[in-house]
């Protein structure tokens, strides 16, 4: 995080307006989901336990996960230690002069995949409406699930005009993007997605969404690349299903429009890249953060995030972002901007003690005399 980002955020009042509006829209829905679907709490417990089990032996589970699809036809499996290795693998698969449709994926933000693929000479499209707006603005997503939360209809219209989408209202813009992107889907050579959950038992990739762009991105192109960070590995399909249901229920209206269960199929070449990027090496106190399902509820409920959006943080902003930055080895003194108020822990479906994690990060910096000079 750059220090000036905080002041940028304070000045840009549309960030807080957008986040507070989203909060207003969603918190009742989430509370209603929790009330109506009593099984959610059980699911959360099951998933958290399973994730902790997987982390206790990442090597074994990663191997198991890789084996689960290695033997399948039409599928290549890779392992990347870090972002650089992952980008290299993707570059070898993709080559250049390709049209690439991307599902919104935080792990690809983590390794700056879109920018990289463009640099080596490809046409890359973020297909999620919010993420497309962010791409056109050349910014980072303001929230894990609602990336363009801080743009007004008017600003979105201006940005979308860059790709010839006309219109003023959200409905007109969505229709324009639908038509524009449909052509890209049909022409695309490669589709790229992340992964919400990976079943080590069957090799299935679970992805949850509302727009249908993930389904189209991962179904239409002849080549499909899935990037699976190893924290997404779960022992069974059932646990994967539970996870995607949780993710949808804890930030928004439920049920999600689509649950995708992707696996190698006739008529498509699938490439699965398992990515570590700091997860195996995470110190003990950060293990709990790895159970995060990235629903982003802690962000939207956080009083600091409500002012700054994800400008407070690195790839992942807000309370969860502090822990993730720790895992990715990029934590800076932004962790001192948390008020440790504990709201994040209170609303987290996995009950991750983020204030504890943030204080541990501070301790680490104080102890290691890592605060540095300015």
């Amino acid at each position, binding site marked *: 995080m750059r*220090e000036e980002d*905080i*002041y940028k955020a*304070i000045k840009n009042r549309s960030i*807080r307006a957008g986040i*507070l509006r989203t909060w207003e829209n969603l*918190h009742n829905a989430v509370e209603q989901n929790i009330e109506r679907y009593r099984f959610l709490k059980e699911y959360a417990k099951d998933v958290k336990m399973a994730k902790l089990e997987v982390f206790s032996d990442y090597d074994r589970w990663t191997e198991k996960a890789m084996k689960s699809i290695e033997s399948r036809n039409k599928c290549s499996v890779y392992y990347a230690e870090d972002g650089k290795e992952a980008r290299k693998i993707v570059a070898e698969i993709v080559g250049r002069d390709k049209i690439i449709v991307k599902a919104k994926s935080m792990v690809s933000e983590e390794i700056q995949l879109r920018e990289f693929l463009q640099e080596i000479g490809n046409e890359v499209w973020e297909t999620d409406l919010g993420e497309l707006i962010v791409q056109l603005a050349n910014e980072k997503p303001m929230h894990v699930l609602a990336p363009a939360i801080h743009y007004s209809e008017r600003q979105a219209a201006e940005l979308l005009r860059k790709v010839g989408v006309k219109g003023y209202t959200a409905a007109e813009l969505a229709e324009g993007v639908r038509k524009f992107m449909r052509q890209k889907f049909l022409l695309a050579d490669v589709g790229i997605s992340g992964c919400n959950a990976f079943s080590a038992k069957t090799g299935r990739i679970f992805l949850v969404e509302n727009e249908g762009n993930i389904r189209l991105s991962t179904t239409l192109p002849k080549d499909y690349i899935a990037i699976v960070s190893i924290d997404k590995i779960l022992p069974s399909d059932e646990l994967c299903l539970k996870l995607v249901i949780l993710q949808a229920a804890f930030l928004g209206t439920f049920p999600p429009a689509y649950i995708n269960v992707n696996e190698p199929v006739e008529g498509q070449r699938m490439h699965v890249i398992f990515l570590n990027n700091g997860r195996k090496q995470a110190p003990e106190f950060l293990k709990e953060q790895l159970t995060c399902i990235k629903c982003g509820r802690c962000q939207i409920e956080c*009083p*600091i995030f*409500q*002012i*700054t959006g994800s400008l407070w943080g690195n790839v992942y902003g807000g309370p969860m972002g502090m822990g993730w930055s720790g895992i990715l080895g990029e934590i800076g*003194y932004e962790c*001192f*901007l*948390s*008020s*440790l*108020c*504990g*709201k994040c*822990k*209170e*609303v987290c479906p996995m009950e991750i003690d983020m204030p504890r994690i943030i*204080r*541990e*990060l*501070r*301790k*680490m*910096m*104080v*102890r290691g005399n890592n*605060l*540095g*000079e*300015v």
Partner: protein
Amino acid sequence: MYHPHYVIRSIEQNIKNTGNPLGLSRSQINTWWEGWEGWKKVGEKDTMLFTGLLYQLTPYVDKLVDYLYKFENTFLEKVTRFMPKSPLGILLKPQKEAEHFNGIVRKIADSLIKSGIDFCYKPELDFYSGVLLYDMGDDEGFTEHSLFVAEKLREKGIKKLITIDPHTTYVLRELYPEYANAEFEVKNYLEILDFKSKKENENITLTLHDPCYYGRYLEISDESRRILDSLGIEYKDIRNSGKLTSCCGGPIESISPKLTKEVAENRYDELSKTGCEIATMCPICLVNLRKFGEIKDISEIIWGAVNA
């Protein structure tokens, strides 16, 4: 953003020198009991009113934060690194505010007496808890300070403590056993006030701003409401109260007072939507939120109702 390095170092240094994070002398800060009427009603007991000095310090902190706010993100920001090391007492003289906050402490003490609770007060044993060091991740500094405080209290045979703010309560109750090996019986005043009366409607409706530590860390939000119920004072809770209460921004005021102000403004806007009088129960929340409108400390309202 003030660099945590300097913030932590100066807090640590000041606590070492004077026992409090601002480096002010205790005789300057802890004056609420001077001339206090209730003085003759408290005596020698093993239960002590332990203010943790947070109410008393807050007007000074607020004044300092005013400066930090003005200098933040300007060329003067770096100058402030030397400020906390200078004799701040000269620079900061929030006379009127100090009287107001001393008055709050006095009202809490008076309400405790009115409630029939036996306790003593020993100004020389009333220390700052060290909470800021803990929050900043300076466990070494915090441990050292907590051992010092716990030892002083033990020496004088103090076994039970009555605390008056959320941070001191949390630190003494939850952290001192672990860090200072000190098992005091810690009660917050809101947990023990009991007027044994069911009063008629007082004709006030409040909206309460629960401090995060009462709402979540200590889970004692019901206590203030129990007291209000017994005094016939109504309250209208908003969604973000109790366990879901929202922060006033105070805890980051030493790093980014500008961000603190924005957070507080958001929270004030939310609280004021009910149209009711707003009450809080933490000195830090109080100074931060009242920048945007009138706010009272709940102890002032309780005292008012009891003495009506």
